[in-house]
């Protein structure tokens, strides 16, 4: 048990701090994050190794060895300084590692540099309306036409599709193969004729996602990553990298802090919420959970440092983390009373309406990307070794 990072890493932390002190004023500010400003900041971060840190120099990265603690320190310091982190889009977090693992040299040269510099924006074409949790049942088909595929079908939950230059997309190239086979992983331009993007409004009122429709979209066969028919395996390699996305390592902790502040400052009939034992008790229950998940995260981090498989402790994080974030938002809404239902641009709005927005969006996270139900199946089967459900007879 040693929670110090040690002198080597503290020196690194000092470096990051020094960088931030010197350059933070060049960071794009909230609200005025222009494309150009974002790219300039990203370029600066790559030069100093605070973005694309472990991408080889040959492909435009910084070329450092992977080091989990360094990554964490970067995240901690950027959050503490309120500075925007390096770009974290799906192209950078999912496609780039996949190309490094399974792409051809040509694909790497062509795509990694522009992607990490933010010059090419990607979206991900995995989910379909009929597939949901059962991703392998996807139906978008790619029929052969000479050296090309003709793609027809529909994708959903495609965030940033309306902004994206390119898509990495799963399509069924071998319709007669078993469902986990016969899928291929294609890269193509979102400007290809036959692609229509429709915004997908969610319960938050915003269009955080899109639907993407393909009608005879022509894509050269050469734009496959990995082998033809092996797209399922390639995609799973990609999914593995999803957690590589950096962010606030203790989002729940930040939210709790805001809740405590809320309870200290909001009053009802002149009484502070924190002086009401019922609110206090509920806040304390949440605080225990936040601490438990924070320390659980330290435990997992240590495991990763030691190269251990995360196992059961890793499998529960999404289920418990999303639920906890949802419950933290629920506390704020409840404690705010009528103020808690305000939204949009309402007067008296608290926290820009983010408590409600998070409450709903977190419910989306509980549901999406493997529902809580699927998570529990996985925990019981892979984490506890319980038997799979028998296949139905008919």
């Amino acid at each position, binding site marked *: 048990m040693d929670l110090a990072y040690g002198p080597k890493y503290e020196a690194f932390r000092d470096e990051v701090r020094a960088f931030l002190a010197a350059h933070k004023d060049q960071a794009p500010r909230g609200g005025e994050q222009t494309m150009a400003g974002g790219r300039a900041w990203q370029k600066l971060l790559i030069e100093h190794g605070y973005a694309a840190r472990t991408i080889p120099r040959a492909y435009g990265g910084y070329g450092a060895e992977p080091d989990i603690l360094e990554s964490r320190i970067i995240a901690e310091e950027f959050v503490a300084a309120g500075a925007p982190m390096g770009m974290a889009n799906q192209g950078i977090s999912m496609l780039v590692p996949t190309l490094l693992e399974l792409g051809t040299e040509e694909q790497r040269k062509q795509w990694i540099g522009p992607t990490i510099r933010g010059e090419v924006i990607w979206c991900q074409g995995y989910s379909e309306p009929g597939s949901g949790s059962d991703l392998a049942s996807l139906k978008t088909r790619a029929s052969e036409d000479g050296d090309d595929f003709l793609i027809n079908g529909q994708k959903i939950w495609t965030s940033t599709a309306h902004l994206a230059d390119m898509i990495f997309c799963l399509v069924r190239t071998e319709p007669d193969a078993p469902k986990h086979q016969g899928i291929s992983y294609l890269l193509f331009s979102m400007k290809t004729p036959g692609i229509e993007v429709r915004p997908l409004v969610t*319960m938050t009122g915003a269009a955080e996602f899109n639907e993407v429709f393909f009608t005879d979209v022509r894509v050269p066969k050469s734009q496959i990553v990995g082998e033809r028919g092996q797209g399922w395996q390639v995609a799973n390699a990609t999914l593995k990298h999803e957690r590589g996305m950096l962010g606030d390592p203790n989002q729940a902790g930040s939210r709790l802090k805001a809740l405590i502040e809320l309870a200290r400052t909001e009053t009802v009939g002149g009484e502070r919420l924190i002086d009401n034992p019922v609110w206090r008790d509920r806040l304390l229950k949440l605080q225990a959970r936040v601490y438990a998940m924070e320390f659980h995260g330290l435990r997992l981090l240590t495991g990763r440092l030691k190269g251990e498989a995360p196992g059961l402790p890793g499998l529960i994080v999404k289920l418990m983390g999303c639920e906890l974030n949802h419950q933290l938002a629920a506390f704020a809404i409840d404690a*705010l009373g009528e103020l808690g239902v305000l939204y949009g641009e*309402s007067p*008296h709005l608290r926290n820009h309406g983010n408590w409600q927005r998070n409450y709903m969006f977190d419910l989306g996270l*509980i549901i999406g990307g493997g529902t809580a139900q699927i998570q529990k199946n996985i925990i019981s089967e892979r984490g506890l070794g319980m038997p799979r459900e028998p296949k139905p007879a008919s």
Partner: protein
Amino acid sequence: MEFCLSNDQAMMQETIQRTLERVCPLERVRQAAASHETRAADVWAALTEIGVPGLIIPEEHGGVGLTLLDAALAAEALGRSVAPVPFAASAVMAPLALMGAGSPAQQAEWLPRLAAGEAVAGVAVAEHASGARDGAGVAAANGRLSGKALFALDAGAADVFVVADRAGGLHLVSADAPSLTRTALTSIDATRSIAELDFADTPAEPLAARDPAPVLRRMIDAGRLALAADILGAGQRMIEKAVDYAAERRQFGRVIGSFQAVKHLCAEMAAELEPCRALIWYAGYAFDEDAERASLMAAHAKAHLSEVGTFVARTATEVHGGMGFTDLLGLHYWFKRVGFDRQMLGGPERVRQDAAAFQGWA
């Protein structure tokens, strides 16, 4: 011994429900929400035709002269269809204020217009129902009001407001009084309207009752029950939608409704919601027949339905998977309706605090 709805009550509720299915399908709700109509004219007209705005207003004033239980049944039907019309304040609380504390002249002026759907009344009593926030509070002196009232219900289309001052006195304020500023508050629920009212020495007509406290109490009790019944209707519809969706949506080669996990979620929702119906019925009955427990029952109905409603809203959304999270099926209108009802006139914690007081526990 008959603890059930009368045939008339069942028919009345059925009529409202069928009317709303006709004039207020999801697409109409969507349209109303997009354009912030919280008194959707066609829906309002259809409901007026069958007497909904005047349900508890005496027949002598042009109403139907029914009980609060009947109003709760109507609220349930409105919640079921997330109907974008005023009700809890305009058709329940304000009429009770006028009937309980208004002079004959005040009653004659407003009750017939409310019953006929020609006028809408907003009600500003949040400071008494849930406690004052952000410095809200209204002072009355010499027939004038000053200060601000937050979260006035059914405020958007209101022609008149019933306002409680800090001391619990009740006042009628015309919506177009020159020194009254009405500021709409946008909430998650686009089918309902709340506002901040700012009074600057605004002329107000006191309601005549010598002791307005019991009237204010009954207004809040009745409003809470109406909101609770709204949750019941919304929750019931969400369960039906979840069960229907689960019967159609296929994953892993079977309809998801055949997965035990999904079935159990639906069973838990139904098991939680079903006893709430009897609680609403009893609270409605108690309002007129069990004076000693009327406030307590209204409080329990409001608090318990809020808790169960939150569980149902979340769980039904979960059963719908990603579709429940999108706008495509419109399920979120029900989700937000429940969320709104939960917080108005006191969230569950606050209402339980009142319930303790009603029993001399605090």
